[in-house]
């Protein structure tokens, strides 16, 4: 068995494609995703912020101060339009970016005029900062009008606060930092781990089963004086190892890049969060991963042995990813907890248990049941895989 295992591992390590998917991708993908997202978002915001906006004013005679402010700003460019113009058409044709309609009752004395409503017409579908940018000009007047109105009425500053917000609802969470962040992050961790484990196992699995058939080496292996069970176990271990390694590398890379990228503002927080999750919890998470990887490896190997070629194996495995994603998605849904029926749903219970471990609210006895049931499923699937590998109709299709 070990002979088969070491030979498969040796072959695996010499394959650039597999290595790329197993090691390079997880190491590089996170900085690329996080960094890339941060970069492009920042770029887009900066562009929206600094773009010169073309605007049209309606009823500008009622608010000369505001009109002057807009005209004075070099970030705004006025376009004159007819009063009866169709705003939508003007905006769609890019003649203007927005149309601002001032109310007829506009006045600095809001006690007399009542609430002032300024209407902005714009295409709000894409990213734009129109509202923010206009508001920054308008707010100054709103504050000034408010202050003068309050002083005219003789309202003290304490009364002002009470008037503006009569009741304040203050919320103090009894959950510690770990639990509340664990709820947010803990759901994503199994999601990534599951998918990467599966992906990491998929490439070697195709190579080891269907690839061997396609290259014409399987027959020779079958008539070697080694029990077929040992051949299967050797191959199974290789796939499981590859899957687990990929997951491990991913988690480590995630942690390292997380620390590197968050340096500066949130490093202390990340460090605190990580230090709260004990070593035991990490070890338990990886223990949970073992039967899971075994399930993946057994299923993938069975498929791979059945397939006649690389292509056939890949076309069977592709849709299988859905069956991995759905149980984890379920675990991510709000309200799904490690209680009652959900504790018995395979894969979902593992995902939920990992979340609980991150949160630090795990019931360790339940963990035994989950581990046991998952291990049982894995054993059954491995048993099937061994049986499957001895079927002539599978091997010589």
């Amino acid at each position: 068995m070990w002979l088969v295992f070491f030979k498969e591992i040796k072959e695996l390590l010499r394959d650039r494609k597999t290595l790329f998917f197993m090691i390079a991708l997880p190491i590089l993908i996170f900085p690329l995703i996080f960094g890339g997202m941060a970069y492009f978002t920042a770029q887009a915001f900066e562009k929206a912020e600094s773009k010169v906006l073309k605007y049209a004013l309606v009823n500008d005679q009622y608010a000369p101060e505001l009109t002057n402010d807009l005209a004075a700003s070099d970030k705004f460019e006025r376009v004159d339009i007819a009063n009866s113009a169709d705003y939508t058409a003007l905006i769609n044709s890019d003649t203007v970016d927005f149309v601002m309609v001032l109310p007829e009752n506009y006045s600095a004395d809001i006690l007399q005029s009542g609430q002032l409503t300024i209407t902005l017409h714009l295409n709000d579908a894409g990213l734009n900062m129109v509202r923010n940018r206009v508001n920054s000009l308008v707010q100054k007047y709103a504050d000034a009008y408010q202050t003068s109105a309050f002083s005219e009425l003789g309202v003290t500053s304490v009364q002002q606060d009470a008037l503006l917000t009569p009741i304040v609802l203050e919320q103090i969470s009894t959950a510690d930092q770990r639990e509340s962040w664990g709820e947010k992050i803990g759901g994503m961790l199994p999601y990534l781990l599951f998918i990467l484990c599966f992906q990491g196992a998929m490439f070697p699995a195709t190579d080891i089963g269907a690839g061997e058939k396609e290259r014409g080496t399987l027959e020779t292996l079958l008539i070697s004086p080694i029990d077929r069970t040992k051949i299967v176990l050797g191959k199974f271990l290789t796939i499981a190892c590859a899957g687990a390694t990929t997951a491990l590398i991913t988690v480590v890379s995630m942690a390292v890049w997380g620390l590197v990228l968050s340096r500066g503002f949130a490093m202390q927080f990340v460090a605190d969060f990580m230090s709260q999750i004990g070593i035991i919890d990490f070890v338990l998470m990886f223990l949970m991963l073992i039967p899971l990887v075994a399930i993946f490896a057994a299923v993938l190997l069975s498929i791979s042995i059945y397939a006649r070629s690389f292509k056939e194996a890949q076309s069977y495995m592709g849709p299988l990813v859905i069956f991995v994603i759905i149980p984890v998605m379920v675990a991510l849904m709000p309200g799904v907890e490690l209680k009652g029926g959900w504790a018995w749903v395979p894969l979902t219970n593992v995902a939920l248990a990992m979340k609980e471990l991150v949160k630090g609210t795990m019931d360790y006895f339940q963990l035994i049941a989950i581990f046991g049931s998952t291990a049982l499923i894995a054993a059954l699937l491995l048993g099937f895989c061994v049986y499957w590998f001895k079927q002539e109709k599978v091997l010589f299709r």
Partner: protein
Amino acid sequence: MIEIVGLAKKFSVENPKKLSEQERKDPRLKGRFFHSVIDVSLTCQQGEVLGLLGPNGAGKTTTLRMLSTALKPDSGSITINGTDVLVNPVMARKKIGFLSGSTGLYGRLSGRENIEYFAKLHGMTPAQIKQKIEALAELLDMHTFLDRRSENFSTGMKQKVAIARAVVHDPEVVILDEPTTGLDIMATQTVLRFIRGLKEQGTPVIFSTHHLDEVSELCDRVAVIDQGLSKFDGELNAFTQLADGSLHQAFLTSINTERQ
């Protein structure tokens, strides 16, 4: 020596509708089973080379796969030098060297590693392996490429390594399934030279082929299979006499005769 008596093998047909017109007309298709090999018997003595002939789909490969223990026969018996292959397949595998025309190598391993892997599976010690590979490299002239990755080998190089791999454990019997199909002239010569070498050593060889010139050049015995049945099993001389010395004619005659 190798003795096969009354071998039979059937395969279940998953979906009869998917079979081709020709396959459906085959009398071997009975209900949900396709009786690939119905009754095949042949013998090959020490030092003899037996050529297994038959049209495509006659059951040659199935017969040889059963002989090499890759498939389990439904009935019949196979004995190699007194060992019952069906009772003790793992023991029998140590006595058999098997090679087919479509046998491949592990591309990411070097030629040497390919041979080593199977030698280890046969339970040889590192010292034995080293010595044996050295001898085979000498014999097959493999020194120049043995330590390179086999994915870039030419067909000839691949076939040499495959031969070395098949005989690394000094098998008592060598089985070759269409070993020259798809090979170029040089590679074919390598295979034929190798069979001749085995013959000189006294190792019995069974090989299936479509090339009758190979039969006349190498074989002592001929066995003909058609539609899963043995049609002829005897000396090459007896075979040629079926039709005045013409092998082609003899082959057709043997197929067209009713079972002996």
